[in-house]
């Protein structure tokens, strides 16, 4: 009897082991889902759909984008963290979830990058722009800083929300120039950008994709971009550092993540596939339309960037005293 049980156990163990090895070898053998912490339509959702479509063609399996909006991204990110670590549930997140939230919600954040996730790769990144009404009084960042210095806390700055990466970028520029702006939050990037063009606020911090319609219509001027590197969208836009905001360097990115515990061969495979997808000309073109540049950096490099940006923003949040809780 004992022998039979023993034999059965070893057979079971063997099948389990081979099944495990096989799971990696013939991955993927069923549809993959990518969770997105936003409603359909935003840049993270669009990134997931572009990558998902190509991934599906290359892997021969359906890739389903599942939107789990709400709760500052907590809902989607915790769902991804708790999902089985088999490579069939992935997460497309943006700087907000892994750079901003840990800084802003330090006490209550229910997930942790290193504990819960493998960062696979950075998918796309873009600078934010500091835009001002084109026929308004402010032509340069220095003009703006001078006005804010004369009357602290009265020069309005539109952003897509309190504790958004745009908000923090704006605070960072203010801190580095020694001035305080009046933060005016909106619900989303497009209304925040339109508010600049209507003159509701004198300037705002917007993603390139949100501000582009207003910029192209000639209603909004770009006084600075938030990255240290120039953007191919328009190389004539000055960087914040050139415009006088020392040290400021912050991009808004989207990236692909997998729950911790996914076998390394699967992570490697996903990285290789996605990195190759990001080099396809039509994919590059699609991201460029939204003002983004494709990523594709190695997982370790990506993790380092996230940590560096997270530490940077923690000090901004403390210095600017941002407390949404």
């Amino acid at each position, binding site marked *: 009897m004992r022998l039979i049980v023993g034999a059965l156990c070893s057979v079971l163990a063997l099948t389990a082991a081979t099944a495990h090895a096989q799971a990696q070898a013939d991955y993927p053998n069923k549809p993959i889902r990518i969770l997105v912490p936003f*409603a*359909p*339509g*935003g*840049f993270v*959702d*669009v990134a997931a*759909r*572009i990558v*998902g*479509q190509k991934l599906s063609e290359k892997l021969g399996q359906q890739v389903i*984008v*599942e*939107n*789990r*909006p*709400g*709760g*500052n991204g*907590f*809902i989607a990110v*915790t769902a991804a963290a708790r999902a089985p670590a088999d490579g069939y549930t992935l997460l497309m997140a943006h700087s907000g979830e892994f750079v901003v939230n840990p800084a*802003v919600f330090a006490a209550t954040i229910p997930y942790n990058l290193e504990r819960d996730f493998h960062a696979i790769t950075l998918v796309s990144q873009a600078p934010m722009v500091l835009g001002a009404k084109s026929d308004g009084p402010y032509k340069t960042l220095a003009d703006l800083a001078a006005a804010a210095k004369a009357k602290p806390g*009265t020069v*309005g700055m539109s952003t897509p*929300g*309190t*504790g958004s990466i745009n908000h923090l970028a704006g605070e960072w520029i203010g801190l580095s120039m020694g001035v305080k702006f*009046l933060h*005016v*939050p*909106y*619900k989303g990037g*497009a*209304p925040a950008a*339109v508010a600049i*063009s*209507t003159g*509701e*606020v004198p300037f705002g911090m917007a993603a390139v*994709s*949100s501000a*582009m*319609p*207003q910029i*192209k*219509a000639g209603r909004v001027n770009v006084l600075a971009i938030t990255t240290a590197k120039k953007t191919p969208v328009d190389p004539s836009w000055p960087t914040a550092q050139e415009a006088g905001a020392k040290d400021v360097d912050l991009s808004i990115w989207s990236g692909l993540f997998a729950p911790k515990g996914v076998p390394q061969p699967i992570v490697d495979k996903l990285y290789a596939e996605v990195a190759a997808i990001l080099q396809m000309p039509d994919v590059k*073109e*699609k991201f*460029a*339309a*939204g003002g983004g540049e494709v990523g594709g950096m190695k997982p370790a490099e990506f993790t380092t960037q996230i940590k560096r940006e997270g530490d940077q923003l923690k000090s901004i949040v403390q210095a600017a005293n941002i407390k*949404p*809780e």
Partner: protein
Amino acid sequence: MDIFSNLVIGFSVAVTLKSLAYCFVGVFLGTLIGVLPGIGPVATVAMLLPLTFKLDPATSMIMLAGIYYGAQYGGSTTAILVNIPGESSSVVTTLDGYQMARQGRAGPALGIAAIGSFAAGTVATLIVALFSPPLATIALKFQPADYFSLMVFGLIGAVVLARGSLRKAIAMVVLGLLLGLVGTDVNSGVMRFTFGAPALAEGISFVALAMGMFGVAEVIYNLEQRGQDRQVFTSKLGRVLPSRAELSFSKWSIVRGTALGSILGILPGGGALLASFAAYTIEKKVARAPRDFGNGDIRGVAAPESANNAGAQTSFIPMLTLGIPSNPTMALMIGALMIQGIQPGPEVMTQRPELFWGIIASMWIGNLFLLMLNLPMIGLWVKLLAVPYRLLFPAILVFCCIGVFTINNNVFDLFQLVAFSGIGYVLLKLGCEPAPLVLGLVLGPMMEEYLRRALLISLGDPLVLLASPISAGFLIAAAALLVSIAVPAIRATREQAMKE
């Protein structure tokens, strides 16, 4: 004759076999998902998005737009037949539409909704074609204070709109406003009344609330009636199309609804919803006798249905010209355009005229398709009511659950549905209309957002609300409306006092 040549460009894009086919697919799918309670255009457009990667931008937008306004047509079908508003803008349609269905006049109700929507769609498409650029600048003139005052006006209108007790209507609006407080505060980012549930961070689910309070509560109420009341509802099917008399009776309601819808649809944020509520309120005040609003007056269907369809068409103006999405479906369409490498905004009109005018021309064709599709189908929908209730109600419940779940893929929303079904049943028993509550829930958070933003920008000066002529105008109109409700009430109590 610039507009003429533009329309020629538009129709040359829209009247190709491919465009016509995709337009038809769009409106057909739209009608279908509109009829299935709960499965909304957002989920459908999201599912079809990958398909559009392979199409050219004009064709994909023609199809996606068709889904959007097709769903507006279909949404009124469930509002009328089973009292479930699929979209916030068809909430008012339930008031008289469902009563008409109960009286065996579902056919005329559906017919007038389709005809009114077509008339409104035609006019609104023309408005979009003629006035897009100047109208976009009107929307830009609206400052936070103006939006706030517009919404105050809308809310006071909602009180006028309620049938029965004024006190109950006020109570419902206030309850709606209070429920609207749940969620993340835009200004400070503080979570209010979420009790630690991240799913509540975006506020109470509108769809769960509307389906629970209107649809499921009605189902419970019907089951309680033990057959007698339901018999009335199912046995008399009546005529399928509205009679000539009914048509001429509601002619002006359609005109008024279209005008209101076209104007309010341009404003980003809640335009179509406000339009349908405002159209109903105005109908109640100005329609000629005999008035029977709340008990199956056909004009109570004609006006809001024309208004919401006109609003759905004109809401393309801020999307196409400014890149501002006025609702989640529009946000998704902007996403679809961006994937195609097109940045929605003012330059679309000048740089891609074939896209801009093609979409506009296709809207009119789509409306025509919808009319052709819907009028013959009315007979079919009405027959649906003859399905025994014991088979119909489980289907309604299942579709409600699927619909609520697919919005956020979150089980928590189903619990919200259950809770609001219970609350809705209690309110029904108490004789409280849920329509003002819904308006309070939707407008409350927006009103707060705009008021606080207006005050933030003015550095706390409340006079900003009177400084702008638009804002001051709406506040004065709201005050006048209040007086008009108050005066007859004062008169009535005085008369009663005199008698005693």
